[in-house]
């Protein structure tokens, strides 16, 4: 496409035909005031702040909605332009409260800033100002709707990016106002829930930054600080494998709030709510403030030295008595590479390869064949250009909200044909071409059937192992294969989400996916939890040390470590009762163990039962270190504040524990020393197609009711579970048992009543709910709650009334 020239304020600028004037002037650094325009949202041209003087036009034109054409002459500062801009500013201010002194937006307010340049110093408006009632729209966003300037950015964001109809403009003229959808749902503890519904999108917090005034602001940090008093700290969100960039802001050393840090390779302009509000747990009442040890008289707080001495002595005793292989270390995958590296090093120098971070994984059979780390062959920026996608066991919208947003863009702008084979019929914000909901026991068969169909369409001969797992390909499976192969689509992917990677036959799913990808020219995208890529590369797996280095003898994986009790455990920022999918087993093993050291940021109820030493470590926001996202991007995060109480950065705790254990190679002076011990590059993912389809399928009893398990997005790790506002959202439901209608009727049970759930010896009572997203005979009982922690994994259960 050939470029054209336009003239702006006497300067000649090159532009692409069809570009909007404001894009061209933005690129050239010529400032045009604006409120409603945003590069990622549709053009509304409603604020009229960007009016400029275009030669030959009968009236001033909005720069955001005026396409450039060759030879166009524009003046942004002429009498006509300035008078239009000043006029708009005056109109915006007449009904605006101008209560900047009590407004949370003050200091970072585009209205305030631009009124200094374009506003008059006194108002000519002598009438009464408009008042707009505030609504309670949920725990994350504070409203002050009188300040709204009706720019509709929040509305356009919700519809176009978040993909939900949650905010809209109602009324006309001066009476128009932003409201939540009257038919939406209200969070359980919303005040005045009857009057309005809440904003429930998993990326809702972005409207706070889009809103150019103080109408929508961050609720948890309301009135806590002025923006100019705060310092920014560049951090990486640890909650998913995207690694969103953010600024954590502090006031006199105290963490107040988090805002996006734009990175157009990763998160663009957006953050997920989990990234934005996860910081809140940093000052939760439940923070572990001082080291504690348990002796005959119970728990007591002690100094660091006593605690570390106690921990080292306990571990040494077990080592001498039972051998190092009777000890194991388990880590939270959302911690930094440095911590995970030191943890595995400590274990391995002690003499044990029992180290892992995969507490929700069930199938480890392809460990030795696996690439350096599970990740995405696709870069994050390429998600938006996908055109054929198969989601396999993935609720991408809630698991990696920003990838969900990107995939939605692919669906909306690129007409991507997206199919899903899932075990729960998730509520996606994009249309699905094919939705195939199967029970966990049928996942491998379904995928193998798709492979059969692919082989049928392409004529490629089918892998014999895959053939063995296939049955009769049904219409849906055929349609999925046809969709993946339709047209001359170039950008294809199979995306494996949490429930595929944690499936009891994950290795088979992975191998069949790899085979299909190869045949259809698609990329295989594995989206593991948090900093899993970092954990693999740090060697926090039993079969490989850092950088995939071979180990003499593979240690026990997380499942094995917890299935039968070891003598000693070192838990790193974990509550296995909530973090392991086989949580019941985990708790009983931990309780049986002789000695348990827990490094934690929070006091944990379960640890009070099984632990012997508690070592307080920094919250992730107080931690410096490295994260590696699913595309292998290495990103550094800087501590935003000093650790709370007597907590210490995790790497220091591990280093000193290494010293107390008198281990070699724990003499690091600072974090850079640790990093030198383990040099990181931009890690390239190696081919994922090595694994073979295991031919000893897991037997499922087709008549039994199975407990289907997933962990809700804000229950995934301790730092989220203690983040107050996130816990009040719709994404943190009260744990219950979900059954579809047919299963419910078949069992003669009624939704809304209490049922007793039995799994082996374990019995517990939960409320029964109708959940038609499930296939037959599946009872959805979430993990991540103390109420359900005695259950373990995907196992048969019985349900009885009462």
């Amino acid at each position, binding site marked *: 496409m050939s470029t054209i020239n336009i003239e702006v304020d006497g300067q000649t600028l090159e532009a692409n035909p069809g570009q909007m004037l404001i894009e061209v002037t933005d690129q050239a650094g010529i400032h045009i005031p604006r409120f409603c325009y945003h590069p990622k949202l549709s053009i509304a041209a409603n604020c009229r702040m960007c009016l400029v003087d275009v030669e030959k036009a009968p009236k001033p034109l909005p720069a955001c909605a005026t396409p450039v054409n060759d030879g166009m002459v524009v003046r942004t500062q002429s009498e006509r332009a300035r008078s239009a801009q000043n006029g708009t500013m005056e109109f915006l201010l007449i009904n605006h409260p101008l209560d900047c002194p009590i407004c949370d937006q003050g200091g970072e307010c585009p209205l305030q800033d631009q009124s200094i340049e374009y506003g008059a110093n006194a108002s*000519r408006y002598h*009438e009464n100002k408009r008042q707009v009632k505030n609504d309670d729209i949920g725990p994350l966003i504070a409203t002050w709707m009188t300040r709204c300037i009706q720019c509709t950015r929040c509305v356009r964001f919700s519809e176009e990016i978040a993909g939900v109809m949650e905010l809209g403009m109602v009324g*006309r*003229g001066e009476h128009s106002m932003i409201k939540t959808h009257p038919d939406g749902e209200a969070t359980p503890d919303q005040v005045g829930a009857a009057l309005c519904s809440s904003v429930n999108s998993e990326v809702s917090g972005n409207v706070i930054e889009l809103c150019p005034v103080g109408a929508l602001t961050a609720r948890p940090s309301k009135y806590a600080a002025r923006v100019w008093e705060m310092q920014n700290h560049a951090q990486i969100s640890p909650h998913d494998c995207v690694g969103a960039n953010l600024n954590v802001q502090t006031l006199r050393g105290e963490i107040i709030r988090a805002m996006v840090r734009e990175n157009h390779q990763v998160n663009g302009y957006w953050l997920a709510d989990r990234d934005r509000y996860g910081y809140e747990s940093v000052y939760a009442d439940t923070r572990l403030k001082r080291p504690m040890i348990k002796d005959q008289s119970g728990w007591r707080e002690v100094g660091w030295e006593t605690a570390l001495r106690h921990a080292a002595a306990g571990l040494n005793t077990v080592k001498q008595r039972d051998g190092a292989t009777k000890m194991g270390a388990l880590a939270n995958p959302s911690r930094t590479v440095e911590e995970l590296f030191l943890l595995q090093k400590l274990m391995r120098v002690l003499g044990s390869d029992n180290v892992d971070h995969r507490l929700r994984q069930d199938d480890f059979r392809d460990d030795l064949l696996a690439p350096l780390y599970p990740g995405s062959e696709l870069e994050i920026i390429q998600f938006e250009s996908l055109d054929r996608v198969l989601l396999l066991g993935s609720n991408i919208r809630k698991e990696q909200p920003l990838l969900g947003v990107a995939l939605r863009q692919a669906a909306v702008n690129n007409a991507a044909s997206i199919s899903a084979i899932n075990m729960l019929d998730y509520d996606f914000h994009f249309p699905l071409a094919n939705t195939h909901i199967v029970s966990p026991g049928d996942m491998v068969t379904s995928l193998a059937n798709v492979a059969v169909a692919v082989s049928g369409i392409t004529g490629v001969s089918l892998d014999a192992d895959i053939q063995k797992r296939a049955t009769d390909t049904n219409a849906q499976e055929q349609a999925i294969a046809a969709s993946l192969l339709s047209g001359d689509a170039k950008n294809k992917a199979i995306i494996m989400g949490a429930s595929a990677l944690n499936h009891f036959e994950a290795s088979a799913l992975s191998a069949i996916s790899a085979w299909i990808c190869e045949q259809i020219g698609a990329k295989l995208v594995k989206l593991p939890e948090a900093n899993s890529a970092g954990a693999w590369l740090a060697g926090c797996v039993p079969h490989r040390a850092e950088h995939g280095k071979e180990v003499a003898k593979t240690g026990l994986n997380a499942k094995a470590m917890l299935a039968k009790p070891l003598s000693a455990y070192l838990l790193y920022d974990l509550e296995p009762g909530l973090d392991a999918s086989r949580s019941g087993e985990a708790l009983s093993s931990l309780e049986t163990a002789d000695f348990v050291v827990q490094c934690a940021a929070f006091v944990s109820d379960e640890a009070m039962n099984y632990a012997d030493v508690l070592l307080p470590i920094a919250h992730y926001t107080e931690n410096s270190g490295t994260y590696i996202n699913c595309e292998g991007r290495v990103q550094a995060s800087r501590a935003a504040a000093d650790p709370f109480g007597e907590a210490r950065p995790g790497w220091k705790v591990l280093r000193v524990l290494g010293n107390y254990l008198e281990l070699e190679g724990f003499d690091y002076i600072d974090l850079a020393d640790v990093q030198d011990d383990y040099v990181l590059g931009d890690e390239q993912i190696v081919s994922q197609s090595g694994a073979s389809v295991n031919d000893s399928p897991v037997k499922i009893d087709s008549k039994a009711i199975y407990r289907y398990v997933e962990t809700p997005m804000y229950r995934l790790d301790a730092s989220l579970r203690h983040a107050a506002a996130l816990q009040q959202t719709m994404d943190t439901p009260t744990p219950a048992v979900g059954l579809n209608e047919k299963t419910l009727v078949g069992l003669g049970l009624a939704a809304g009543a209490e049922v007793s759930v039995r799994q082996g010896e374990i019995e517990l009572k939960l409320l029964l709910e109708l959940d038609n997203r499930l296939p037959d005979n599946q009872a959805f009982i979430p993990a991540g709650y103390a109420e359900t922690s005695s259950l373990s994994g995907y196992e048969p259960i019985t349900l009885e009334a009462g």
Partner: protein
Amino acid sequence: MRRGGEWFRDLGVKNSGGTKLFSVSGHVEKPGNFEVPMGMPFKELLEMAGGVWKGRKLKAVIPGGSSVPVVPAETMLEANMDYDGLSEIGSAIGAGSVIVMDETTCMVSVLERLTYFYHEESCGQCTPCREGTGWLYRIVKRINNGTGTLEDLDTLLDVANRIEGHTICALGDAAAWPVQSFLKHYRHEFEAKIPALNPPD
């Protein structure tokens, strides 16, 4: 149809072919809709509507619906009802809704009514119209109530000028034009309602 387009066009005048439906309302004896050839002198149209009611004198006419500029009687009585004819006298044919006002009409009250209409009709999408129409109405209302100030007149005109040409749709212009024309032709009536200009003796 039978007689062809040319015949129809020739019923009217140059640049305004054919006939036009005028809806004459206000202070006339027989308000109603009249289909007449384009270019008919206003006087004749007024006669068809039975003339100004109660034998009163004509004061002003809004010839094309509430959004077009108001025209004083003297000018209007000489004008022809077609595109060019009305644009020559600074107004427009608009929708052909002719509003006739007799000599007893208070022009401030009329403008209050008109600005109220636009204030209510604004959709609220864009800033100048959403905020400006309410402002116009409130100033006019205040003047009409006898609590206006001299500055109000300048502000009123300036606000109208700042709406005109700055909005997404034509409703903003429509709200501005009557204000501009009423102040142009009847400023004295507005001034007469401003206490500062009319001290009690």
